[in-house]
């Protein structure tokens, strides 16, 4: 933003401090920003960003990748130095045509048609986890159900040994710390020797995940299988359709995004069902509500709170002039509670119709790759909970992550209840 702008924009209340999110999404502050005509400016470090908080404005940014680039600056709030941006560049931080090429490398595995083939696997894992949860009389829902379900499914798709699920969830938790103010790992953890600024999430856990991906690559080069890692390894070998760098980052992204986000949806979903027993009763009474209830859980959870774009040229949004290079941040957490887009947005409504939520992004080419997988996992979980007539009772407050980027829940105690 030019400091000499003719009329100073409205300043947004603080929404970027990760510690705010320890008490949940600061919805009142977002409501305040949504009410500002045009866009509000949010100071951040020595610069700032435009806070895009309304549903319609998020859609406009998300669906215009030419004007609002993913490749410039960074897709998180802070800018990266040029060498760090290149070292860390993944599918998330690219524009067409690189994005289109990389996306197609993995898109085939995640189409609605191909995701349906995983339904039996998802159900098998879900049944095992739910039955264990019931036999233990409950416990930490994150540890017992929400975390193991998605990681086991994505590892099955990748062809990674499910025995390593706990280790990879642990790495994912360290990665998320990189979006907060706390890093519990020393820089040389996991034998890391790379400068942290060159690693995704500034985290030595990225080094560990890259190393793990390299080992999988070596295994599948020696012995190809019918799995996603083999597919990527072949794409790299076959005329270099992807580079070594791109392989490492795709593996990193698939493991991380394939488990952390759906874990968050399932954690918040359980809390929503525990707090809204009447809505869960509706689903039990009408299995046709599994689908809208799945969408509502995903809207309710909004596992990724924001993504940033950067203006490629001078433009205008919601009547506010934006200068080339300005950071433009889409707050999905706010768009998914926009009074203009939803009737009674703060009500958890298992039968909500016309639920065009932005939990998978606001549309456009960066739409969540795993959207149909996430929907399958949540809907199978609901079906199996319904088959057991299982109600949840939440015991105490959840432990949330101090992150403005992911809506993470570290633990939440739940007990199963027989039908009310």
């Amino acid at each position, binding site marked *: 933003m030019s400091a000499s702008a003719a009329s100073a924009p409205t300043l947004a209340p603080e929404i970027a401090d990760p510690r705010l999110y320890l008490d949940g999404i600061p919805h009142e502050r977002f409501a305040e920003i949504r009410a500002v005509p045009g866009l509000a400016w949010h100071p951040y470090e020595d610069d700032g960003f435009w806070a895009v908080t309304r549903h319609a404005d998020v859609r406009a940014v998300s*669906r215009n990748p030419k004007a609002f680039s993913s490749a410039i600056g960074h897709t998180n709030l802070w800018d990266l130095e040029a060498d760090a941006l290149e070292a860390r560049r993944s599918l998330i931080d690219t524009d*067409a*045509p690189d*994005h*289109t090429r990389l*996306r*197609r490398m993995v*898109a*085939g595995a*995640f*189409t*609605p*048609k*191909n995701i349906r083939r995983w339904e039996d696997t998802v159900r098998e894992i879900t049944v095992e986890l739910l039955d264990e949860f019931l036999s233990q009389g409950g416990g930490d829902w994150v540890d017992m159900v929400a975390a193991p379900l998605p990681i086991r499914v994505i590892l099955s798709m990748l062809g990674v040994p499910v025995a390593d699920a706990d280790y990879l969830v642990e790495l994912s938790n360290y990665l998320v710390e990189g979006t907060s103010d706390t890093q519990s790992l020393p820089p040389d953890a996991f034998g890391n020797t790379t400068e942290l600024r060159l690693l995704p999430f500034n985290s030595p856990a990225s080094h560990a995940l890259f190393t793990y991906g390299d080992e999988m690559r070596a295994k599948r080069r020696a012995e190809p299988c019918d799995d996603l890692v083999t597919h990527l390894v072949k794409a790299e070998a076959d005329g270099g359709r992807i580079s070594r760098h791109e392989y490492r980052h795709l593996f990193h992204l698939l493991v991380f995004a394939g488990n952390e986000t759906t874990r968050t949806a399932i954690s918040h979903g359980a809390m929503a069902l525990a707090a809204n027993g009447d809505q869960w009763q509706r689903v039990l009474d009408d299995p046709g509500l599994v689908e809208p209830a799945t969408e509502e859980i995903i809207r309710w959870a909004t596992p990724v709170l924001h993504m940033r774009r950067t203006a490629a040229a001078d433009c205008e949004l919601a009547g506010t002039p934006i200068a080339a290079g300005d950071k433009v941040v889409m707050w999905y957490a706010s768009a998914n509670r926009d009074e203009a887009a939803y009737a009674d947005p703060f009500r958890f409504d298992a039968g909500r119709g016309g639920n065009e939520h932005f939990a998978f992004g606001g*549309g*456009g*080419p*960066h*739409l969540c790759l795993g959207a*149909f997988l996430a929907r399958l996992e949540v809907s199978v979980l609901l079906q199996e909970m319904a088959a057991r007539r299982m109600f949840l009772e939440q015991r105490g407050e959840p432990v949330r992550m101090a992150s403005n980027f992911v809506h993470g829940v570290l633990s939440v105690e739940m007990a199963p209840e027989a039908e009310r």
Partner: protein
Amino acid sequence: MSGDLVRVAVDSERCIGGGQCEMLEPEVFLLDEDEVISSVIGSGELPRPRAEVVAHRCPGAAISIVEPQRPSE
């Protein structure tokens, strides 16, 4: 009129292989298994409201409505 049939087209350069079109309108769109690019199959015609939905849902903005056809019976 809402019953009008329109023809749809896929810009293969923009297609990111999301598969939304194939899910919504399997009679009209087919995703190539290897290239993961959508193409139009059959008549390529849809009632206008359905064509608008599938064009709107396409994450790559690769689907367009090219020409109005005859009104439906």
